[in-house]
């Protein structure tokens, strides 16, 4: 067979810091929407500590996982199992024999390279909670970065922390490539002397150091766009929280974000998860299903939801 040249897949990753905000539910539902549109989707459960995406899809825990790729050199594409949904495959990231921290840097780079080479239209990555650097690095790998919040102060707090950490890591990597890593680290270490108390002030200070530094930072800022999804809202007023968070990201941190959509709270969702029944297939005409379809469209078209009421 002739090897035809194909476009590399578009990678979407979903994170946000706090656990229990609905990341796995949302990303598997988005996958369902894309698969319905005849897109070939691979869903990756990169929650190294507690992979459970298979439960959302109502299938048994796959026997093959990323461990087989890392330890037995099985090719990544052979580890993709049937998700139960047409056009969508599932790859479980649980690494039984290794502690979640145990993945080596070189292994990680190799894994990322192979993910980018998978034969699919969309690769959706479900990240675990927290802002561990492995989680952050996987998040940064994505072409589209999705963050989930719920209308709770702790979720919003963790999300800001997650975004700041992710941006700082991205900036450090780029500056490292330019041999400027020490400058940032030293500035941050001695931040008291420079009167710097937060990321924003650090960025302002660094930009003032040199034109090169300013250019790099501006480029990094504009290349770091996040897509906000607001989950589990219980009143129409809460819709605005997404717009508010978007505004704060821009005005406080200089980070661009788009607010792609919200999902109402629906107790049926937890019932479906417990019954291991994919919600999108069980209730395709529900309000939540339509909200997820709409936010998927917005993600595809690069649009914001019109949310001001």
């Amino acid at each position, binding site marked *: 067979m002739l090897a035809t040249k194909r476009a590399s897949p578009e990678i979407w990753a979903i994170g946000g810091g706090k656990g229990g905000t609905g990341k796995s539910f949302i990303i598997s539902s988005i996958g369902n929407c894309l698969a319905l549109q005849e897109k070939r989707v691979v869903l990756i459960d990169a929650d190294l500590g507690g992979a459970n995406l298979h439960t959302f899809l109502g299938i048994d825990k796959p026997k093959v996982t990323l461990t087989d790729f890392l330890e037995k050199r099985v090719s990544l594409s052979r580890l993709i199992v049937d998700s139960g949904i047409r056009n969508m495959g599932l790859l479980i990231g649980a690494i039984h024999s290794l502690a979640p921290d145990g993945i080596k840097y070189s292994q990680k780079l190799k894994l990322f390279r192979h993910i980018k080479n998978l034969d699919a239209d969309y690769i959706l990555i479900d990240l675990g909670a927290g802002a561990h650097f492995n989680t952050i690095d996987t998040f940064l790998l994505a072409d589209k970065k999705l963050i989930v919040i719920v*209308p*709770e*102060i702790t979720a*919003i*707090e963790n999300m*800001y922390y997650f975004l700041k950490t992710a941006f700082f890591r991205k900036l450090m990597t780029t500056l490292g490539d330019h041999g400027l890593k020490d400058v940032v680290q030293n500035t941050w270490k001695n931040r008291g002397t420079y009167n710097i*108390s*937060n*990321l*924003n002030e650090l960025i302002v200070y660094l930009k003032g150091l040199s034109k090169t530094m300013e250019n790099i930072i501006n480029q990094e800022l504009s290349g770091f766009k996040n897509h906000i999804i607001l989950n589990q809202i219980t009143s129409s007023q809460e819709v*605005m*929280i997404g*717009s*508010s*968070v*978007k*505004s*704060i990201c*821009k*005005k*406080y*941190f200089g980070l661009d974000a788009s607010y792609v959509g919200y999902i109402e709270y629906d107790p049926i969702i937890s019932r479906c998860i417990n019954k291991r029944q994919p919600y999108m297939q069980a209730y395709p005409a529900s309000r939540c299903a339509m909200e997820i379809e709409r936010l998927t469209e917005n993600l595809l078209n690069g649009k914001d939801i019109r949310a*001001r*009421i």
Partner: protein
Amino acid sequence: MGRDDYSKYLNTLELSPGASLSEIRKAYLHLRLLYARDSIVTLPVKDEISEERKKEILDEIEEAYHGLLVLFEQGHVATDYERGPRFETKDLTQASREVGNFSGQTLRVIRKKLNIELQDIALSTKIQIQYLENIENEKFDALPPLAYIRGFVVSYAEYLGLDSKKVAEDYMSRYHVWKGGNEKKT
């Protein structure tokens, strides 16, 4: 001038070019509230920003809103007369046909559906907002002299993208019914 300020102001209010006055006002009210008080969105980042910078942000929001209003009033910005409602033109032509008789009430319902504020129409058509309200409420006795009314209704209907001739005809016939009844009484 004008263009640069326009982009800058819209940027501050986080809007895209072509935003309607309703959108501008909503954005302004939302942002003003967001940056003026503590909420679950702002409390976690309280330390991230100085009080002075916070004050600056609020000032920028005020400046942007009032600046945009001036630009609209001076006609530097094409109002949504040419844009906004036109998107729904197809539906509206359909609606115009389906509505048997345009009353003040139907006009208000359509306007609300289009998410257009009376103030936007007032700014664009230069008709006093009070008159627009009276047209919707059919407070015929509080409307200007007969010669003006038709013109006002036409402008209003055009702003909404409706078939203005039909709207004016329907509306004026309602007016004349009222007037006829009124004259009999006196």
